[in-house]
């Protein structure tokens, strides 16, 4: 059947387009130093693990990963906490200025980092927060709040409002309603938002580069970007580190593909 072969062909093409370049890099991480520099390139590696060892031991990959986990994890936690408060208010109070606030969030989510980078750097400097986890986490919370708030607002709005009113009549304060009723009910939505915020924070480079100059605090993207030394270009270690940095994300993506699709398109295309 013509149609069937067309779909088969295009599916394979799409799969190759998406996966092959990265697969090539993963294969590179298993090559020996001479295989990496072979001309023409050698496709099949001899599964040499030395670059993983040196990435871990000499280049401190584990430390970078640990930093990334701390930074991305804390960013996610705080953004969800602060963002869910805001999202709840935005989903439930229709006031003239809440509308403006939503638009403001939308607008600032689009500003390039350089538009604010200098003064942000000076504020963090003033607070003595440069080269600290909380400095970069504070910047990341600001970066991820707009996206987080929009996604959570969409999810909150879909919850049955009467259940919240029932809780109000039953004796809850607004905050208790949020904590005891809305958050448990919106858990899938929160989870989706959390995955997206986590991935976003895990991958962010600009502010990490600016704020974290101390290698013991640097996150994976900064680490990987700065692997090349003055006189060295350690492709093997870079490939190994890249593979390990990406694995958790690929895993998350494969596992939560549906949620991610829904989260990213939340509020965007419906209606």
């Amino acid at each position, binding site marked *: 059947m013509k149609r069937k072969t067309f779909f088969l062909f295009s599916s394979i093409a799409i799969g190759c387009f998406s996966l092959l370049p990265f697969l090539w890099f993963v294969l590179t991480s298993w090559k020996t130093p001479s295989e990496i*520099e072979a*001309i023409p390139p050698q496709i099949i590696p001899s599964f040499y693990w030395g670059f993983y060892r040196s990435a871990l031991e*000499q280049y401190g990959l584990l430390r970078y990963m640990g930093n990334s986990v701390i930074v991305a994890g*804390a960013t996610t936690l*705080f953004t969800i*906490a*602060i963002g869910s408060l805001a999202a709840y208010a935005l989903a439930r109070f229709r006031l003239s200025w809440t509308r403006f606030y939503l638009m403001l969030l939308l607008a600032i989510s689009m500003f390039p980092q350089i538009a604010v980078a200098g003064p942000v750097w000076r504020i963090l*400097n003033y607070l*003595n927060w*440069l*080269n*600290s*986890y*909380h400095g970069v*986490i504070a910047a990341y919370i600001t970066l991820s709040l707009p996206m987080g708030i929009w996604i959570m607002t969409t999810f909150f709005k879909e919850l049955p409002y009467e259940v919240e009113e029932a809780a109000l009549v039953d004796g809850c*304060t*607004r*905050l*208790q309603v*949020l*904590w005891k009723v809305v958050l448990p009910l919106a858990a899938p939505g929160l989870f989706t938002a959390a995955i997206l915020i986590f991935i976003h924070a895990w991958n962010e480079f600009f502010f990490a580069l600016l704020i974290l*100059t*101390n*290698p*013991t605090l640097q996150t994976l993207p900064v680490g990987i970007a*700065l692997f*090349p*030394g*003055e*006189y*060295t*270009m350690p492709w093997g270690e870079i490939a190994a580190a890249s593979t390990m940095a990406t694995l958790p994300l690929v895993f998350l993506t494969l596992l939560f593909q549906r949620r991610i699709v829904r989260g990213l398109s939340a509020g965007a295309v419906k209606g």
Partner: protein
Amino acid sequence: MKFSHKGLLDISTLVGFLLLSCAAGYAQTQVRFVTWRADPQWVWDQAIADFEAQNPGIRVVREVGPHSSTEFHDLLTQKLKNRDPEVDVFFMDVIWPAEFAAAGWALPLERFFSRAEQKEFLEAAIQANTYQGQIFGVPVFIDAGLLYYRKDLLKKYGFSPPRTWPELVDQAKTILEKEKDPQLTGFSAQFKQYEGLVCNMMEYILSNGGSLWDEREYKSTLNLPKAKEAVRFVRDRMIGEISHRGVMAYQEPESLALFTQGRAIFHRNWPYAWEAANDPKKSKVSGRVGMEALPAFPGGKSVATLGGWQLGISRFSRKPDLAWKFVASMTGKESQRRIGLFTSRAPTRKQLYRDPEILKKNPQFESEFQTFLRAVPRPRTPVYIPLSNIMQRYFSSAVVVPNSDLDPLASLASRDMDRVLDLLREKGRP
């Protein structure tokens, strides 16, 4: 109003907890040293261990920065802009002392580092650490541009190492023609748009009798004929006739790889390349490598750009005396000897170039010494980085496009440089 703050309180407690857990406590008598990860590690560990042994109760805390000059610069300057009292001693690339001195970040070392003591070191390295008549750093090792070549190939065709750049091109062309190896190229160096490009281009321009800018008049000299001639030569002949186009994206590692894989006849690099090129594990041309001072243009003098790293002391250090003790130990004879013996770096104390043990291990030092003595630092100025960025841009656009008109590019670069240099004239500050 009635509103439960319990939930908010939980959140703020959590914030507080996180902030507290991030703030680490520091012990008292520490010397904090901002450095990068040098090879081999043990040489530095040993130097620090020696210092700690001689000064009981004092601990050296190393903060290891990125192993790239630009990134390390950003790390360090951020700390210094921040007046971070946690920094005592730091590594400096050879182009930074002026900037750090002018910005008031580096401590002048006159009261520790006497003229007599300075005489022990290579003059070029001392000169690079001197700004406005004061000294701001102690050189740890020195770098200078050198010409590496394939001894075997030159011998095969009866050439002696080239003295001039045109000679180099001609030799390379002859060899390429006769070898008929499509993998082989004539020359490999660093022409990517980055600081190394300035180092490379400076060697051509100065060896043609030109200069980057006039340090007295604060005027760019890149648009003068001598400078333009050198740049044109690089574009048309060095790159145009004997190099692979890829060199325009090469920094040191890529250009060295080309040479060690036996795919380049001539190679410009720093002293460290000698060991790498002669290490049979890393190099296919080990034992077939020769080294010379860089060629010059006919009638010009060979010029090697000075590189290398220095130790400086932060003006915001709370214990400058202790910091100096540490610097003195790290640049002392014993440490310098170890550098000469066990790293592929060149030491900065002159006497080590007469040390038989070192010369036995590193015979190349003997010929390098002359180059080190004559090596030329890049002009010292606090606005070096912006000037360098302008020059990088100019050199890159000049060499990348084969038939471009150099004149407008050069005058544009000069105009931009003059604008920056004008800043130095203000308020009577030279």
